[in-house]
C-alpha cells in the first residue's frame, strides 16, 4: 500500500521524524518497505510554480509557441514550448517553470534518464528554460502536454513545497486488510504515536427524487453478499477529475480515468471499500412501467460476461454476479461488465457499495486470473458497516466534482448482520502468553487507542472489550493480546529462558545414522551435493537408454510445474548425480560426490507416498589429484568405489556385508555388484554402462556409481556394539599363493579359506593377483596372507601347519585350486 504523507496527514497529525514513524510502524507489523520522496530532485530555486502571462506564435515554427511565464521575480521569462495544451492567446494558466541548470527527466527518452537543462535557442528564439510535463518532473509517464496546476497554485513557490510529497510504501501481511486504506493506516498511526484520529462520518446531500422509485436491489445469495447499498447520481458531467485527485491516485499507484471512476477509486483508497459505478441508463431488460432491478446471484450454468477489459469470460456457478434484467453486468467485487460501463455519454450513475464473501471473491479472481484492487480488498475481508460510509462519501464527491443531483435515500439491502463481538480479557492471560504484567488500566488505554470499546468487568483484573466493526480480524483473546503487544512494542517484552518443564529427551538415531554416513564419506574423500527432488522423465530414461520413457503414472506428479524439467518427484538419485558429475567435469578432473536424500514412492491405497532415504555415490576421474608426491596412479574405478562402501559398512558396524555380482541397465555388464547385508540387498554399485555414459554426455572413462537404501544400511547397524578383547599373544602370518580358474570369484576363495581356517584365523588379506606366464591361460594366481592368533596362548608352528593343510585341502577339493605356497 502506497501512502502519500499529505493524504495521511488529513486524518492524523505526525510530529515525529519520518524515520522514527517508519520504525514504529514496522515494529507494529506495518512494514515500511521504502520511503519515497516525490520531487526530491527538484532544485528549489530552479523549478518553481509559474503563471503564463501570454502565449505567442513562434515566428519560424508552426508547432511551437513562445510562452511568457511570470514566476514572481518581477521579470517574466520567455520559454519556447511545443506543448499541445497551450495555445497562442492563452494566459493565466499555472505551470511548472524549470530554469537553466534544473535537473529533469528526459521527456524524449523511452528509458528513465536524468538531464540538466541547458540554455537553448530553439529555431532562433532563446529559451530561458522550459515549462514541464509530468514526465519531465518524474511524476508520471505523461508527456503529451505540460502539467497545468490548480488555479490557486502560489506563483514563485518552489515546486517542491507545492507538489513535493513523501510516499510510505507499506508491505502488508494478509491480516492487515484494514490498512489497505489511508484511514486504516491513519488509525494505526494514531494508536502508535498517541496522536488523535480526525475522522467524521461522511454524509451526502440527496435532493433528487427518491431512489426507491428508481432502482430495486435483490440479493438472491445472501451467503455470498451480506449487504448491498446503492445510490443514484443524476445529471453528471463526465470529465477529468481535478488535478489534486489525479495526483493522489497516481502517487498511490492508480491511473486516473474520469471524474466518476476516479471518485470510486479515490474513496476505495481512502476508506478501503471498493465501489462500482454503473451507467444507469444502460441497465437492460426492465419491463415497461417497472423499476430497474439489480439481482445479486450466482452465475447460471454456461453464463458469460464481457468485462471492462473487453474479454469475454466463461463463468461457473460459484461466481457471484451483479445482474440486471438482461443478464450479468458485473462480477461481484472483481470487475464490472462492459455493457454498463461509465462512458463519455453517461449522465446518470448508479453507485454500488456492497459486501461480498472474501473466500468466494478470492476463488473467483483466482479462477478468472483477474487480480484487481477491488478483489485485493474484498479478498482480505471487509466489514459490512463500511459499505454505507463509502457510498455516502463517494456520492457526495461525485455531486461535487461531476455536478448532478443525488437521489434521496439509499437502497440498503442488509440481510445478514454480523454478530457483535465481545471478548473478556484478563490481565493474567496477558501475563500467561507474553510473560509481562500489564495493568487493566493500561490494557484499556491501549485497546481504546485502536478503537476498541472497553468496559471494566466485575473482576478487577478483567476488561470487557467490544470489537469495532473495522477490526474483523480480532476474534479471540490472543488477537487482543497481540494488539497489546504491538502497541507496547515487542522489544519491551523481556527475553527469558524457558522455565517450563523440560520434555523427555529422545535421540534421533535415524538422523544420527544419516549424519554418521555423511561423516564417513567425507572422510573417504567424497563431497556432499544436494540436488532437486523434482525431475523429468527424460532424464530418468537416460538411465536405461534401451527403453523408452518410464510410466508417468508410477510417479508423484506436479499439477502446476514451474518448468517441464521439474515435473515429477524422483524415485532415484542417480540421474541427478550423473548430471552433477557431468557439470563438474567441465572444471575438474576428479569428481567424488555423494548425496543422501529422499525418494518418493507412491503406495497403493495410500494418499501420500512413501519417502525412504537413499544414498547415492559417484566417483570418476584421477585417483589422486595432480601432485609431485604421486606418480600418475590412473583413474578411479570400481574398486575405489567398493573400497569406500566397504569402509562405510565397517564404520557402521555392518560386519556381515558382502558383495554379489549383479546386473542392471545402468551398469556395464560384469562390472556391477549388489551390496548384501544380512541376506538383504541394500543397493547396487558398479561402473556406468557406456551407453548411459553417452546419454549423460560423460567422457569415456570409468564412472562409478552406487545407490543404496539408507534404511537398509542403517538397519544393519547394530544399535549396541560390544568390546572385543585384544590378544596379548603374538600373531603368526603365512602366505598362500594359489592358481585358479578365472571365473572363481575371490569371494568364494575367501569363504572357503575362512571356513577351513576356523576361529584362529585373525585376518585374511588378498595382496596380489597375477595373470600371465607361467599361469595358464584362463587362470589367475591369487596371493593371500593369513594371520593366526589365539587369545590364550602362543600358537605353535605345528598347529598352524595343520590348519594351513586343511585350508589347502579344501581349496584343492572345492575350487580345484593349485596351491603353491
Amino acid at each position, binding site marked *: 500500500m502506497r501512502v502519500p504523507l499529505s493524504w495521511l496527514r488529513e486524518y492524523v497529525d505526525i510530529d515525529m521524524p519520518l524515520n522514527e514513524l517508519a520504525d514504529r510502524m514496522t515494529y507494529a507489523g506495518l512494514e515500511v518497505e521504502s520511503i519515497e520522496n516525490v520531487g526530491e530532485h527538484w532544485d528549489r530555486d530552479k523549478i518553481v510554480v509559474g503563471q503564463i502571462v501570454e502565449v505567442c506564435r513562434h515566428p519560424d515554427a508552426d508547432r511551437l509557441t513562445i510562452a511568457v511565464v511570470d514566476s514572481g521575480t518581477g521579470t517574466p521569462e520567455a520559454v519556447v514550448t511545443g506543448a499541445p495544451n497551450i495555445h497562442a492567446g492563452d494566459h493565466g494558466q499555472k505551470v511548472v517553470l524549470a530554469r537553466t541548470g534544473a535537473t529533469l527527466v528526459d521527456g524524449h527518452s523511452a528509458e528513465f534518464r536524468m538531464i540538466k537543462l541547458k540554455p537553448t535557442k530553439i529555431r532562433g528564439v532563446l529559451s530561458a528554460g522550459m515549462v514541464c510535463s509530468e514526465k519531465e518532473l518524474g511524476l508520471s509517464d505523461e508527456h503529451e502536454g505540460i502539467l497545468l496546476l490548480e488555479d490557486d497554485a502560489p506563483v514563485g513557490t518552489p515546486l517542491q513545497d507545492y507538489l513535493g510529497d513523501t510516499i510510505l510504501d507499506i508491505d502488508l501481511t494478509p491480516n492487515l486488510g484494514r490498512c489497505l486504506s489511508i484511514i486504516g493506516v491513519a488509525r494505526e498511526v494514531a494508536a502508535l504515536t498517541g496522536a488523535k484520529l480526525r475522522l467524521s462520518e461522511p454524509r451526502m446531500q440527496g435532493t433528487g427524487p427518491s431512489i426507491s422509485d428508481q432502482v430495486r436491489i435483490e440479493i438472491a445469495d445472501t451467503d455470498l453478499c451480506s449487504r448491498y447499498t446503492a445510490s443514484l447520481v443524476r445529471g453528471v458531467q463526465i470529465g477529468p477529475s481535478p488535478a489534486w485527485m489525479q495526483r493522489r491516485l497516481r502517487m498511490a499507484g492508480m491511473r486516473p480515468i474520469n471524474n466518476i471512476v476516479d471518485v470510486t477509486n479515490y474513496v476505495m483508497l481512502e476508506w478501503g471499500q471498493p465501489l462500482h459505478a454503473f451507467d444507469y441508463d444502460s441497465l437492460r431488460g426492465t419491463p415497461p412501467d417497472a423499476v430497474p432491478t439489480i439481482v445479486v446471484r450466482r452465475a447460471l450454468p454456461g453464463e458469460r460476461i464481457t468485462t471492462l477489459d473487453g474479454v469475454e469470460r466463461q463463468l461457473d456457478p460459484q461466481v457471484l454476479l451483479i445482474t440486471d434484467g438482461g443478464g450479468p453486468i458485473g462480477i461481484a467485487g472483481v470487475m464490472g461488465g462492459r455493457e454498463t460501463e461509465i462512458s463519455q455519454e453517461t449522465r446518470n450513475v448508479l453507485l454500488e457499495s456492497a459486501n461480498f464473501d472474501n473466500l468466494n471473491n478470492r476463488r473467483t479472481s483466482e479462477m478468472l486470473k483477474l487480480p484487481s484492487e477491488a478483489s485485493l480488498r474484498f479478498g482480505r475481508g471487509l466489514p459490512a458497516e463500511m459499505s454505507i460510509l463509502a457510498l455516502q462519501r463517494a456520492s457526495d464527491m461525485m455531486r461535487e466534482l461531476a455536478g448532478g443531483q443525488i437521489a434521496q435515500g439509499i437502497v440498503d439491502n442488509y440481510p445478514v448482520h454480523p454478530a457483535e463481538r465481545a471478548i473478556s480479557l484478563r490481565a493474567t492471560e496477558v501475563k500467561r502468553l507474553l510473560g509481562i504484567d500489564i495493568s487493566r488500566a493500561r490494557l484499556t488505554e491501549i485497546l481504546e487507542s485502536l478503537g476498541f470499546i472497553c468496559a471494566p468487568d466485575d473482576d478487577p483484573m478483567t476488561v470487557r472489550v467490544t470489537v469495532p466493526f473495522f477490526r474483523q480480524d480480532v476474534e479471540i483473546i490472543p488477537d487482543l493480546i497481540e494488539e497489546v503487544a504491538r502497541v507496547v512494542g515487542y522489544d519491551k517484552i523481556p527475553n527469558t529462558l524457558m522455565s*517450563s518443564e523440560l520434555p523427555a529427551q529422545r535421540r534421533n538415531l535415524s538422523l544420527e545414522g544419516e549424519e554418521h554416513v555423511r561423516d564417513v564419506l567425507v572422510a573417504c574423500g567424497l563431497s556432499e551435493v544436494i540436488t532437486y527432488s523434482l525431475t523429468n522423465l527424460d532424464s530418468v530414461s537416460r538411465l536405461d537408454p534401451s527403453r523408452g520413457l518410464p510410466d508417468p503414472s508410477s510417479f*508423484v506428479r506436479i499439477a502446476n510445474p514451474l518448468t517441464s524439467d521439474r515435473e515429477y518427484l524422483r524415485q532415484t538419485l542417480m540421474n541427478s548425480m550423473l548430471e552433477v558429475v557431468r*557439470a*563438474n567435469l567441465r572444471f575438474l578432473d576428479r569428481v567424488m560426490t555423494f548425496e543422501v536424500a529422499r525418494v518418493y514412492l507412491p503406495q497403493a491405497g495410500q494418499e501420500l507416498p512413501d519417502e525412504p532415504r537413499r544414498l547415492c555415490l559417484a566417483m570418476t576421474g584421477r585417483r*589422486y*589429484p595432480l601432485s609431485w608426491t604421486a606418480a600418475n596412479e590412473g583413474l578411479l574405478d570400481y574398486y575405489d568405489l567398493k573400497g569406500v562402501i566397504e569402509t562405510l559398512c565397517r564404520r557402521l558396524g555392518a560386519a556381515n556385508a558382502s558383495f554379489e555380482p549383479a546386473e542392471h541397465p545402468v551398469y556395464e555388464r560384469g562390472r556391477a555388484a549388489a551390496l548384501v547385508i544380512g541376506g538383504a540387498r541394500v543397493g547396487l554399485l558398479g561402473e556406468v554402462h557406456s551407453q548411459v555414459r553417452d546419454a549423460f554426455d560423460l567422457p569415456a572413462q570409468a564412472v562409478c556409481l552406487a545407490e543404496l537404501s539408507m534404511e537398509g544400511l542403517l538397519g544393519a547397524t547394530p544399535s549396541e556394539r560390544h568390546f572385543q578383547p585384544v590378544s596379548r599373544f603374538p600373531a603368526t602370518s603365512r602366505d598362500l599363493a594359489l592358481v585358479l580358474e578365472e571365473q572363481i570369484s575371490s569371494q568364494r576363495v575367501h569363504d572357503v579359506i575362512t571356513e577351513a581356517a576356523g576361529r584362529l584365523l585373525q585376518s585374511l588379506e588378498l595382496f596380489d593377483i597375477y595373470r600371465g606366464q607361467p599361469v595358464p591361460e584362463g587362470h589367475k594366481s591369487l596371493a593371500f596372507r593369513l594371520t593366526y592368533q589365539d587369545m590364550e596362548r602362543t600358537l605353535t608352528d605345528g598347529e598352524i601347519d595343520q590348519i594351513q593343510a586343511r585350508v589347502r585341502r579344501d581349496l584343492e577339493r572345492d575350487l580345484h585350486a593349485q596351491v603353491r605356497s
Partner: protein
Amino acid sequence: MLEKLHRLEQDAIEELRLVLTKEGLEPWRVKYLGRKGALTGLLREIGSLPAEQRPALGQESNRLKAALEQAYAIRLEAFAEEELRRTQQQAFDVTLPGRPALPGSLHVSTQILREIYTIFAGMGFQVVETPEVETDTTNFQLLNIPPYHPARDMWSTFHTTQTGVLLRTHTSPGQIHAMRRYCPEPIRVILPGKCYRYEQVTARHEHMFYQVEGLAVGRQVTMGDLKGVLASFARQMFGPDRRVRFRASYFPFTEPSAEMDIDCGLCEGQGCRVCKGSGWLEILGAGMVHPQVLQNGGYDPEIYSGFAFGMGSERVAMLKYGIDDIRHFFANDLRFLQQFG
C-alpha cells in the same frame, strides 16, 4: 735444517686448520706442496747440503711430504662430504606441498543444519522429521488456513495431480505431526527439511529450500521465552555482539506473530544495499502457537501454551557466509561447495 723442516710442518698444519673453504685449499697446496712451494724449496736446500746430512734429512722430508699430502687429502674429503651433505639438505625442501590427505566436504546446507541442531539441542530441542509430501489439511487447514484464505498468498504451492496432496510449502505441518505424536507431553522440537514453493528461481528464491521449524509446548511457555530462545540462537549462530529485533507480523497459525531481524553485518546497522538501507536483515518468523492449532494438535489451549518459529537455513547460511545468491546451493558446483569443507 731439521728445525726448518719441523717449523714448516707446524706452519703448514696450523695454516691448513685455518682453511675454511674448499677453494682455500688450493693456495695452501701451492704454497706448501706446489712445484715452487715451500717443501720443494727446502728439498732443494737439502740437495745442496753435505752428503752425510742428506739421508736423514731426505727421510725426514719424505715423511713430511707424505704427512702434508695426507692432511690435505683428509681436509679435501671433509670439504667434499660437507658439500654433499649441504646439497642433500637443500634437496629436502621443507616448503614443498605435503602429500594431500583427501577429505571431501559436507554441503553447506548440512553444515548449517548441524549448527542449528547443536544450538537448539543445548536448549533441550530435539530433531524430528516429517514428510515432504503433505495433504492440504496438514499443510494448511490444520494450521488455520482454510481454502482460499487470503494468507494462502504467502505460500505459492506446488500441487500434485492428486487433489489435496501437495509439496509442503513450509515445515509448519510438522507442528501438527509433533503435537499429535507427543500429546500430552511437553514438547521442544526442531523440524528440519526440504520445502517447496512455486516460485521463479532468482538470486533470492529457490523452488526448493531447507526450512527449520521449532516448536515448544508446555504449561508456562511465554513470548518472553520465545524471544529469549531466539535471541540466544542468533548470538550463538552469528556472534555474541549481534543485535536482534522483533517486529509484529502475521502467520495464521501463531498469535501474536513476530519476525526476527538481525543487524546487518555488512554495514553494521548503518544501512546498505543488502539490507535495503534498513540496517536489519530478516531471519525468521515466529509466534505463540494459535489456540486452534494447539487444539488441532490435541493440547488444551487453556492449560498449554507454546511458541513456534521457522527459518530458511539457506538464508541463515547466506547471512553467515556472505553468499549473495541462493542458486549456488543446489547448483552443486564443487568449487563452491568445497569452500565450506
